[in-house]
Every structure is written in structure tokens, then in C-alpha cells.
């Protein structure tokens, strides 16, 4: 499996994603700088990492969505390559129109960094095939603009096409804190119609090692690997 990790101006999760693909999964991972381009054939999966690209100025993801590398990302997406956007990467996918909807500022207008409980709603994706349906997993959320918003029609579509992949079902270490985010339909992750693009707000790459106290995120990366090794079917 060949993985591209995009380095936007101000990305900070790029190293974390590369670390998981390379050192934990033992796969090849290359950085692609936002001023560069690539061909769909160059990689199997493209990761848009977290961080505050362009300082989150204007709107998170808005400025990165207009960088040169995004033309290549769109091309790869259209040719069916896997695209994974995490945190700010999700926001970039939204701003670039590769996923529907947008992110609003958290309900309490504060940055929120803690563990969250999320429910796996859809396991028939290349990103979640190793989870069990309705399984509740722990991931780390770290964002200020994490409140998913879309118009009624889009929400209806996401639901009817089963494209809501993860939903929040608890906040804080014990999952009993008040919801600071107020995401529509509790959306934590969605996929596009074709199912090759996933955007998620929580960070699976920070929950992929025993020493960090949580390996629930590792299965997302293993799912991707499984998808490639087990013969691709979307």
C-alpha cells in the first residue's frame, strides 16, 4: 500500500499520520507538499492530515482547499483512490466540495480536546471494515470547529445512503460530559456517495499505540490495509 500524506501550509498531523503508516503498519508513506502535484497512479491512498492549516484563518480548510495539490487530490478522488481527511483534513474536503456540508464553531465557542466515544454506524467502507456495526470506540477529538452542518436535503441523503460513518455518543473520558460540539445528527465522520472518501473529526492516528493508552484508532488503518490486501470492493 502506497500512502501520500499531504503537507498543507501549517499542517501538524502530517508526521503523526506518516508515523502510523510507516512505523506501525510497515507501509510506504510519502509527504506531498501543497505546492506540488501527483498522479492518481502514484498512490493508493491520500491522507489529508489534521492541524490548523493556514492558521484556520478565514474558515478552517478554506484557504488550503485552493492550493495546487488539491487539483491532484480531486483527480485521485475522481479516479476512485481512497482519500482520508482527518480533522482539518476533513474541513479541507468540505471546503473543496469533495464532501457535502460544512463545519461550524463548537457550540460553546471553545477548543475541545479530550477523548470522545463514537459509534461505528457503517462498517461497509474501506476505512471501517474491521469494526463491528454499532461498536462504540474511543478516539481523541481536538478541534474548535467541529460542529457538522448541512442543509436538510444533504442530511436526508447522508442518512438514506448510509454515508454517516461515525457518530458521537459520549464526550470526555467517561463519555458523560455535556456535548460541547453540537454536530448535526451527532456526525463525527461521513463518506461520499461512492464511498472512497472519508472525512472524520476525531484523530484515529493518535489512538493507534498501546503506549498512548488507546488502540481503537489503529483498526481504521488496518481496515484500509485489509481493503487493499483482500481485493478491493467498494
Amino acid at each position, binding site marked *: 500500500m502506497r500512502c501520500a500524506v499531504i503537507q498543507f501550509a*501549517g499542517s*501538524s498531523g502530517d*508526521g503523526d499520520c506518516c508515523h502510523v503508516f510507516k512505523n506501525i503498519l510497515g507501509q510506504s508513506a510519502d509527504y506531498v507538499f501543497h505546492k506540488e502535484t501527483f498522479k492518481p497512479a502514484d498512490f493508493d491512498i491520500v491522507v489529508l492530515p489534521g492541524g490548523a492549516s493556514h492558521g484556520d484563518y478565514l474558515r478552517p480548510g478554506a484557504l488550503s482547499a485552493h492550493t495546487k495539490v488539491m487539483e491532484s487530490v480531486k483527480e485521485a478522488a475522481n479516479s476512485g483512490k481512497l482519500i482520508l481527511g482527518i480533522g482539518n483534513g476533513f474541513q479541507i474536503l468540505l471546503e473543496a466540495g469533495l464532501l457535502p456540508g460544512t463545519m461550524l464553531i463548537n457550540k460553546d465557542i471553545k*477548543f475541545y*480536546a479530550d477523548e470522545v466515544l463514537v459509534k461505528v454506524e457503517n462498517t461497509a467502507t474501506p476505512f471501517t471494515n474491521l469494526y463491528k456495526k454499532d461498536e462504540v470506540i474511543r478516539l481523541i477529538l481536538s478541534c474548535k470547529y467541529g460542529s457538522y452542518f448541512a442543509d436538510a436535503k444533504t442530511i436526508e441523503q447522508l442518512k438514506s445512503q448510509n454515508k454517516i460513518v461515525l457518530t458521537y455518543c459520549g464526550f470526555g473520558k467517561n463519555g458523560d460530559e455535556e456535548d460541547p460540539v453540537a454536530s448535526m445528527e451527532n456526525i463525527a465522520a461521513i463518506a461520499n456517495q461512492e464511498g472512497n472518501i472519508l472525512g472524520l473529526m476525531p484523530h484515529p492516528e493518535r489512538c493507534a*499505540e498501546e503506549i498512548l493508552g488507546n488502540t481503537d484508532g489503529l483498526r481504521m488503518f488496518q481496515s484500509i490495509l485489509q481493503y487493499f490486501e483482500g481485493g478491493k470492493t467498494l
Partner: protein
Amino acid sequence: MTAREEAKNLGLTDLEFDEIVKTLKREPNYLELSLYSVMWSEHCSYKNSKAVLKRFPTEGPQVLQGPGENAGIVDIGDNLAIAMKTESHNHPSAVDPYQGAATGAGGMLRDIFTMGARPIALLNSLRFGKLDDDRAEYLFREAVAGIGDYGNAIGVPTVGGEVYFDDSYEENPLVNAMCLGIVPHDKIVLGKAAGVGNSVMIVGAATGRDGMHGASFASGELTEGNEDQGSPMQVGDPFKEKQLMEACMELLQKEWVVGVQDMGAAGVVSSTSETAARAGNGIEIDVALVPQRDKDMKPYEIMISESQERMLVIVEKGHEDDVKKIFEKWDLDAVKFGTVTDDGMLRILENGKVVGEVPAASLAGGVPIVKRESRRPEYLDKLQTDFSKIPVPSDLNDILLKLLDLPNIASKAIVYRQFDQTVGTNTVVTPGSDAAVLRIKGTKRGIAVTIDGNGYYCYLDPYEGGKQIVAEAARNLVVSGAKPVALTDGLNFGNPEKPEVYYQFEKCVDGLSDAARKLGVPVISGNVSFYNEGKHTAIYPSPVVGMLGVLEDVEKHCTMDFKQDGDVVVLLGE
């Protein structure tokens, strides 16, 4: 106006003015006076504290760089080292808590990555008035948001800190930031302008009129009138800083880089004079070459501007374009504006014409050191409390609940939840524990880090209070499974010209020193912030200590929660 009167307006004393005339063998012009006024301010020169700071133990086999550089550096094994430092941003945070705290974190980060170390963790120590005071609540809320937004945007985790509320901080809050970075031994870069003929470059953001005289502002009490200095507040740009950090990390891999220094307080003048003085050289610069954001800036304004997200870089002659290329990639300016010389002078040109010329060493270290008067405060003798006379409460459960409800004791999750604690995937133990633990990728090792202070103890007994803080920090590390190896301090006190304040300062330093010596934990860096007083109140003497510990095997760290029914609970100590 005579030069002497001008000097006085700029905050220089008669004694200092005489010293300048003696050094220059002539009267200084306005530009030169401005340079002296910021460089000889307490904030930059440590004139009130230098003598006392000598009491700190600063040596040990693990120390690779002690106090005097941008940050201290200590060996942690496996050919790796940790650079660390504490920095205060108290006065700016009182004026604009959001920007003040944010730029404090920003300056701290630059001190670390100028040394070639990649920042891996931030901590902070905060003191505000009680939360039922509206202004205190506002300062607290905004300072926390400012620290969070800056650190979160730049992608360095905040792994620990402390918050304390007390009336004594109502007018003058304390905002101290601490940063740690990791660097292989052979990649350490110092702030030295070595090699005559080498090129002096300014990189990063353009220069504006931000925070003019900020350094001298930080060296005066907060009184009405000086809250608005008539010059713009520095605004932080974490995005630019992140770009600057990545560019510097790339640059500092190159063997032709000679020295790097952050442009923090007193910007161009402090970075040029300090790097020159450390190398025993001079620097000649042309201010007209500095990229400028504002129109018609005067040479003195360019010299002392505190615009953020800038650095001074000294490279071997001929590599200027290589530097430009790296910074272009990160969309940043890099401009050669000077040269290292052998005459020890900081020579300032404007479009080729000399407009000022002073010995670099005199700016950087020539301030007349003042031995302040020290007097034991009377209140200390009135503190006798007979504890046997305090009645034992009848309902201890009730008292316990009341205690847990106090803002100073309650969980600080509301604060650290606003900080990204885990970016970088190194954080093994997150805030909420005694110390944070980080793993060091590529090794079995880990580090533990904590920041602690206790102003009230130091008020009651400055010497014992100082000792206590070091002991507490060390305990926090040890219970996490780490061996303490070095500390960095932040010394926050009132007006040192008051003998009682100076007494507190001296005694606290003695306490910190004695404990550090006893525990074998050298002081490798620190910061002094005086004049933390308002119109009505002075803060408690408030030193804080950031301490680093090493775990040979990070798997063997210990967390503080009870693990299992039936486990034995033991109380150690008296």
C-alpha cells in the same frame, strides 16, 4: 532637550547615562539612547537580579548548555538532548490577555527552535484574581484562549500547567509559559555571531511598529497611564510562526549556519548585540534593508520593534541564496541586512549612512549592576499562628466537599480541555496527573515534566517556600517514575527597588538554590519578571519551577489513579 533629559524620559538613570557617555566617549544620539534604554531595561539586562542569580547551581554532567543562551539544554541519553525554558508575559497579558498570552507562547517556542530543537511540549503557569471579580474572570478566560489558540494552531501539545486564583494577582496577573524541544547533540545551534565577514540575515515576518518599548514597559509597574503605550500591541500569528519553525528546522540541518537568535523583546537590537557580544565580534547592519510592514519607520523604530515571528540568522558568506530558497518554500522573507565585523561595534546604517554606533558588548552586558537594598518585611514577624487554637470542624465530610469545590483545588479540566494535549503522538500521560509523561520516538526512553509554584508559601516564608517548590516539582516527577535532571525557573516578583520585595526575591532564590543543589537538579534556564504590582496590590512573591525528569523505560511510568480493588495504600513521609 538635552541628551540627559532624553535619557531620563526613556527610563535611563543618571548613573546609566554617565556610564553610556563614558563608554562612547561622547554623548549618545537619540537612536543610541533608545537602544540603551531597551537593552538596559530590567527585562533585557537583568540588572537587578544578575548578582543573585549567580547563587543557582547550574552545573552537572548532564548540562550541555546552562543559562545565558536562548534556552538551556540537558542530555537525556541516546545522544538526545532537551532544550527548555520558561518565559513570562505578565504585563502584556494585563493589557490584552488574549494577545499577551498568545505572544508569550510564541516567544517561548522561538527560543526553543532557534537552538535547533523541535518543540515537543508546552506548559503554562497562570495566576489571576479571584473568579468572582469580572475583570479577573475576563483575563483568565482570554489568556487561556490565547495560549490555546496559539499552541493548538502551531501543533505543539500543551501537556501541563497550573492555575491559581488569589486577590494578590487581581491587578497584575501572571502568565508564564514553558517549552521543551528535542535535539540530537550534534545539531545544537547557539546564538553566536561568529566568523568575521559572515552574513547577518533577518527572516520571518516583516517589521512593524508593534510593542515599541515593550521591554521597558515590562520593567515598570502597571499604573494608570502606562497601560496604553501609544504604540500597537503585538499580535501573534501562529500560522507564520509554524512556517518559521518548519523553515528553521530545515535551515538548522545545514552546516553553514553559524548562529540563530530569536527576535523577542527589543527585536533587532537585542538579537544583533547579544549574538555579537557572545562571539566577541561586532555587527554592521543597514536598517533600510529590513522588510517593513509600516510606512516611514525611523531607524530607532526598526531597531526596537517587537514584531513577532522574526529571527536573526547568521550564515557563512555566500549562502544567502540558500537561506532565501528555504524560506521561500515556507512563504517567508529572508534578507541579508548586515555583516559580522571584528571591531566589536554594533554599527547601524540607514541606506549606507552611519546613524548610530555603540559597542555590542556594552549594550548586551554593560549595564551597571545595581545592588539593591534588602530588608526583611515586617509582616513576617506578625505571622505567628497558634494552630492548636483552630477549632476542629464537626463535619469533616462537609469541609471536604467545600474544599473540592474551591477553584484552586477543583479539577482544571476546564482549562486544559482547551489545549491540544496529544498532537505529535508522544503524550503518554496527559494533564490531570502529577506530571506529564512523553515518550521519545525511536528510543525506549521517556521524559516527565511539571511546572509548579506556590506564591502563598513564599509569602509566608520566602526561603522555605522556594525550597518547597523545587521539592514539589521533584516529587511530581518521581511519582511519575522519572529521575529529575534539570529545572528552569520563572521568578515573578514586585518592584525590586523596594527593599522588602528584594528580600523576598533573594530568599526565594536561596531556597530554590539550596533545594536544587541538594537534589542534584541544576538550573539550566529561567526568566525574571519584576514590577508585578498594581496601584493597590503587590503580588505574592511567585517563583515557578519547571522541572524535567528522564525515564529509562517509558513503559515503567506510573499514573496516579487507583488501579484495583484490594490494592494496598501506603502513606510515605511524615
